[in-house]
């Protein structure tokens, strides 16, 4: 539909709570998997095989279709040395690309700073959901956090449209007025105008958008739909972020995990259809990650916090396939009962930053990491 050259965007879906790698990309031909998972397993007849060793969770149908089209990179064994099994700390490590010390800046916040060094576009990064993930936190980088795109902006609780309009007008006058020489008042004035402008632009996104794709009713699908609307509004949003969960399946894992992946795979499938319909499938890449995988042995109902996990990169520009090695389930190869990571997450970040967003990755991810060959050149 659109013929103008677009810039490339990254869409991040964070799986919060620790996604069970073993039940996402299932080593269905390995007897040790079924030995360790007498209860919380995906049986061979339900797995969707992607080769003769590994298969997707049965809820991942739409992702399997994309896999067949060569658009899904499965990044195996991802994690970092000295695994931390605390949700907060491990997510922090992923967000700040800093496994040892306490990191100060988010990796995507740094990326946004490099993409828009003068901070000219307040919508270079947009987070869908309340509360900024630390991945996007970086001093001087402004990120809009959108709870609901339809009502995004100031005074969303004012129901009376006329009153809301008058209030917004007054706000605009108050923040647009001369601020005198006080730099703080000037900064507040500018920020208020930016916020108004950002909200105005964001609210036009759903109006300008049309698509035959019908997203699901769940929160993730609705957030991904908003992502598509903002992405297709061509307003220079290059990092679009959302999260889904909780993947913290200590108990009753099988139905919960199935439902969550149904939603993730469904949303991703819809988004890819949507991109195709708009002729933009080569302009966006989806990154899916979680803070850790889960323990190899189940606890008879769910599984506890573990180490190595799986990430996905999905998009028209991706060379589909398996990257990295699936960690061994052999006891000697385990780390404290978990899958041992053999693939630093900052390698995948480096791929995304350099080969997709065209940035210098080393200062963002705190070092040089070997890349895979994930993107079409």
């Amino acid at each position, binding site marked *: 539909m659109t013929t103008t050259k677009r810039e490339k965007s990254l869409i991040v879906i964070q799986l919060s709570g620790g996604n069970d790698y073993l039940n996402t990309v299932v080593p269905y031909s390995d007897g040790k998997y079924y030995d360790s998972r007498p209860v919380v397993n995906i049986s061979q007849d339900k797995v969707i095989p992607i080769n003769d060793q590994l298969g997707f969770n049965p809820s991942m149908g739409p992702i399997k279709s994309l896999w067949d089209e060569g658009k899904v990179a499965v990044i195996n064994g991802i994690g970092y040395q000295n695994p931390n099994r605390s949700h907060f*700390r491990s997510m922090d490590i992923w967000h700040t690309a800093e496994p040892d010390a*306490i990191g100060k800046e988010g990796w995507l916040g740094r990326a946004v700073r490099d993409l828009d060094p003068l901070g000219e576009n307040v919508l270079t990064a947009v987070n869908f959901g309340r509360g*900024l993930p630390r991945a996007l936190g970086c001093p001087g980088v402004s990120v809009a956090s959108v709870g609901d795109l339809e009502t995004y902006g*100031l005074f969303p609780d004012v129901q009376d449209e006329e009153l809301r309009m008058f*209030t917004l007008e007054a706000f605009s*006058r108050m923040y647009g007025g*001369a*601020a005198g020489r006080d730099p703080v008042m000037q900064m507040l*004035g500018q920020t208020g105008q930016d916020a108004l402008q950002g*909200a105005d632009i964001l609210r036009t996104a759903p109006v300008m958008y049309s698509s035959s794709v019908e997203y699901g009713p769940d929160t993730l699908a609705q957030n991904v739909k908003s992502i598509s609307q903002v992405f297709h509004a061509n307003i220079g949003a290059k990092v679009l972020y959302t999260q889904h969960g909780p993947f913290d399946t200590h108990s009753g894992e099988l139905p919960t995990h199935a439902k969550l992946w149904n939603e993730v795979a469904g949303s991703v499938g819809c988004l890819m259809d949507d991109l195709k319909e708009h002729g933009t499938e080569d302009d966006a890449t989806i990154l899916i990650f979680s803070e850790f995988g889960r323990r190899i042995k189940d606890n008879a109902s769910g599984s506890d916090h573990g180490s190595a996990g799986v990430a996905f990169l999905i998009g028209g520009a991706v060379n589909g396939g398996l990257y990295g090695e699936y960690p061994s389930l052999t006891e000697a190869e385990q780390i404290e009962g978990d899958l041992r990571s053999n693939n630093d997450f900052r390698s995948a970040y480096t791929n995304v930053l350099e080969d997709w967003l065209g940035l210098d990755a080393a200062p963002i991810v705190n070092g040089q990491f070997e890349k895979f060959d994930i993107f079409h050149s």
Partner: protein
Amino acid sequence: MISNDTALMAHLLRRAGFGASRDELEGYIAMGYKGAVDALLNPTDPGNMPDDLIRRYHVEQSELRDLPGSAAYWMYRMISTACPMEEKIALFWHGLFATGYTKLNQARTQLNQVDMFRRSGLGSFEDLLLELSRDPAMIIWLDNNENHGDSINENYGRELLELFSMGIGNYSEDDIKECARAFTGWTLGNAEYMAIRAAKDSIWPYGRIAWHFDYREDDHDDGEKTFLGETGNFNGEDIIAIIVKQESTARFLATRLFQFFAADEVSKAGENAVEAMVATYFSSGYKISDMLQTLFLSDYFKSEEARFARVKGPVEMVVGAIRMAGNYQNPSLGIEKVSDNMFFMGQGLLRPPTVEGWHEGVEWIDSGALVERVNFVAKVLSDVKSPGVRSIIDWLEAGADDGVLNPSDLADGCLDLLGPIQVSDETRSVLVDYAARLGDLDLNGHQPGDQAEQRVGNMLRLVAATREYQLA
């Protein structure tokens, strides 16, 4: 007209507390300014809701082991305390000695640290640093449990000098190493096991184990050390005694207190107040409440220049609005959702991003955070059902001739009762125009939630959305 007494007292309460309703202000004004400063700096009974009652009504605050309920629990204390300075000083130390949940997984141990800040945060800085060095949350946070007699870990030693007392540039790398040596053996009971718990634990289904300080003499390096030019077989107590004697420590502490309680930037006039605080630091035996008394009674603090010279932090924003609205005085469901708003604005209690704490001042403001700030406060203060807003309506009615307010009266009255807040002429004229759209406001015979009251709520919403309201 707004009286000088009221404006000054409101200024003091924004700094030594979380702002104040008109009724509260009247109470403080009756004490006189100096009396109010003394009352604030000498907390007595905060009138907390007893923990057993909180636990009965708030399951999420019962165990205090996870983050959301624990942050809400502290916020509750801030909202309901009769001694706001006690919570404000705890918030100050929480920002300066920033300890984060991410590494601890033990919210209770952080709340114990906050309690220590309440207990010792206005006392001697020497005592406070000693308590900090023995604080289990701090020990794990900065790895002092890994600081051994035969192999030091410098993390705590370094930050004690750089971030907690003297500031960078006032000591050498050798001083850091000697400082770390002196704190070897300052650890937790069963430290090795507890460190594993902190790193490898899962919130569910396992419980928590209390942490306590343990001094291991056999893991302490008792050898001779040279620290900041002094030599001896120093232990941690000796190091702290040397640290607190330093001019740089006095200046560091005075400046940080000034920036939190007076103004984001230290101006030329502000320098005098800092100097006076440095002098008080030494003459009082390092007493923090005395330094703050010096500040609050200084000409600088009382001057126009110090008014609205700070950007409100998110915790001040949220707690200030809720105290003003008089909400959550009793156990009420949903309070943890309220504390989430602080995080949305960029300051989650108990989860400072790093040991450096939050970047404060103008760095609180970006367009994403501003939307959260304005929307939250505007919603809370425009709710005419809340007791604090009802009280504002009563004050407005009492101050009006025959119960009728013209547009200027309405704008000025709301600015007065939410502060008093000083605004630019331009802001004021927008507020007056906004009120003028519907002409004079007749409050005679107003009924809860009727149109007349809602007009007050609408004006409060707009005042809460001004640039000036962002400042403390």
